[in-house]
């Protein structure tokens, strides 16, 4: 099942790159399933809607799936990763806010993706559940209500203060009431417990998948993994879990096979073995449609082994305590997500250092979106902490456009040369 990788995107990059980095890597059946799952999911959501189920759109990890599911609703993420809808958003929003907010807003007000494929979920939403995180999102949500009913969950911004959990718990209780009203279903502690256990299963599976990447030769490319993570909140919880189980099975089989073949021809493989720099991406999320920087990194000789981002570890790293009162356990777990809109956010720095050690990272790419002030300002702290730990950092600030592919490529080339 081996086939040449890195060929798919060569049109966008120079042939030179492929000349040097063409590799054989294992092809996973499950990845095809995940990448092609979008249309099936749309059919599923349409069916559910017909049957009277409510569909909730979310834009952030701070909105607990568990409460939505316990109310008997389904959810789908609305974060935009595509460039196409940005010009639509700019009819309403200033140009100098982040591309993620513009892309999402453009898709929502356009009730789809201006004819762009794979965006039809935007028109299936009964209610958006948003959250007070960064300024761009907060103020944009004020405009969203005119298009889709929008509920905004408030967040305390100092998560370590004693009042924060209490306040967030109250907010979650209000949100629970909103969900009950939307669906007409009561959210009972039993239902919540069941959903907490189910979501923890997803988190444990993701831990299992990420654990495989700690290997000296990760069985799955970072680019493929990011595409899996981009589907985490698109697919239904059950389908995503199913896909994760299948993917882990496949990856484990490959790894077992590899160990055997290496043992057979030790001398041979040693001679051919050039170790690729192991990269962590840390920073802003990469919603579906946006894989520019991971593509550049892996096309130019790096291997991404972990993502410290909302489309990476931040989404699953901590479990919800199953032994506590469910609402309190949710409040405690979710308020600890190390987002840059929180202050202080030292938890994120500690987490980056811990991940760098666990995943044996050679270098970190600090990835930020243009005009994302939170992560852009936090960059300084991240850089300092990594420098002190002796881990090289490359900072890349970009948008969803293609115009800077070469400039980023040069920096990545130099970074790879520096690490190898």
């Amino acid at each position, binding site marked *: 099942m081996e086939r040449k990788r890195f060929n798919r995107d060569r049109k966008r990059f*120079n042939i*030179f*790159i492929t000349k*040097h980095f063409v590799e054989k890597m294992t092809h996973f059946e499950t990845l095809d399933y995940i990448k092609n799952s979008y249309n099936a999911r749309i059919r599923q959501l349409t069916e559910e809607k017909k049957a009277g189920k409510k569909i909730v759109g979310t834009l952030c990890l701070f909105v607990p799936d568990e409460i939505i599911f316990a109310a008997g609703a389904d959810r789908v993420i609305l974060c935009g990763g595509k460039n196409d809808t940005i010009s639509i958003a700019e009819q309403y929003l200033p140009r100098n806010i982040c591309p993620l907010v513009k892309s999402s807003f453009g898709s929502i007000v356009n009730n789809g993706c201006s004819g762009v494929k794979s965006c039809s979920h935007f028109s299936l939403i009964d209610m958006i559940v948003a959250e007070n995180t960064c300024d761009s999102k907060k103020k944009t949500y004020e405009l969203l209500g005119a298009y889709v009913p929008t509920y905004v969950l408030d967040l305390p911004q100092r998560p370590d203060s004693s009042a924060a959990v209490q306040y967030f718990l109250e907010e979650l209780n209000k949100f629970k009431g909103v969900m009950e009203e939307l669906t007409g279903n009561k959210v009972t502690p039993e239902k919540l417990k069941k959903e907490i256990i189910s979501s923890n299963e997803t988190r444990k599976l993701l831990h299992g998948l990420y654990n495989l990447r700690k290997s000296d030769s990760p069985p799955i490319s970072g680019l493929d993994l990011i595409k899996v993570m981009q589907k985490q909140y698109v697919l239904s919880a059950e389908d995503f879990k199913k896909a994760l189980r299948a993917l882990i099975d496949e990856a484990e089989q490959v790894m077992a096979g590899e160990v055997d073949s290496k043992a057979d021809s030790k001398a041979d493989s040693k001679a051919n073995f050039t170790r690729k720099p192991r990269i962590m991406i840390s920073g802003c999320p990469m919603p579906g449609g946006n894989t520019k920087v991971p593509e550049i990194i892996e096309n130019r000789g790096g291997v991404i082994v972990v993502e410290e981002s909302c489309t990476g570890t931040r989404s699953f790293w901590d479990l919800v305590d199953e032994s506590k009162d469910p609402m309190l356990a949710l409040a405690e777990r979710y308020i600890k997500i190390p987002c840059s809109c929180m202050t202080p956010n030292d938890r994120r720095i500690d987490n980056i250092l811990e991940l760098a050690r666990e995943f044996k990272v050679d270098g970190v790419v600090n990835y930020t979106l243009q005009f994302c002030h939170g992560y852009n300002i936090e960059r300084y702290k991240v850089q300092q902490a990594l420098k002190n730990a002796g881990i*090289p950092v490359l900072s890349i*600030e970009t948008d969803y456009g293609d*115009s*800077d592919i*070469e*400039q980023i490529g*040069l*920096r990545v*080339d*130099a970074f790879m*040369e*520096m690490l190898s």
Partner: protein
Amino acid sequence: MISVGIDSGSATTKAVLVIDGRMVTHNIRPTGFDFLSAAKTGYEEALTDAEVNKKDVNGIYATGYGRNSIKFADRAVSEITAHTMGVHHLYPAVNGIIDIGGQDCKVISAVDGRVTDFLMNDKCAAGTGKFLEYTAKALEVPIEELGRLALASKEPASITSMCTVFAESEVISLRARGFKKEDIAAGLIESIARRVAVMVRQVGLKQNVAFVGGVAKNAGIKVFLEKELGVSLYVPPEPQITGALGAALYGISKR
């Protein structure tokens, strides 16, 4: 061992021929529209100059913006690594490099010829050769004269725009207000020096810093940069070719 380094830059193409670790010849020409043909011409000229036969060349190594279009090269290397190796060859004690080229500006920190950190300006002409080219035009001064002119200034004008297009209009309005040519020139160069100095401090360069790239040929800029940074800068006799030299040496090191 014969190796050729080609630096295919946005403005100029540089070729360097190295025999047994010693630079034998170099040449510089405008890149023009066709990256590949400028590189080919530079390569062939280097062979003729050094009286070397094509078949005796052990390797050709490309760097610079067009590095991936140089099809006849054996391998490409980033400008950042190339400049670092080239400068290390000329000044082994140097551990910091400022490179100002036609369309970008790089600040590199290095230990023993190996890059440890670097920073580049964002996708914008501010603080690059292009900035000088445009603003010199607005001043109606040949770009080669800009530095010398600036050195004659006693009271540099203040230029606040980082944007090349805005700085051009700022120059025109200063002219209209009757500012002296040399003071405007000095203001322009000071504004670049300030911008580069910020990058130098971010990377943390302190001493033994080299200044390379086409803009380093401009004596005035070196003086203003030194004043801004408070250190004296090493400028090679031919500051434009350190990238090509480094590429040739990089090739040797990878054989």
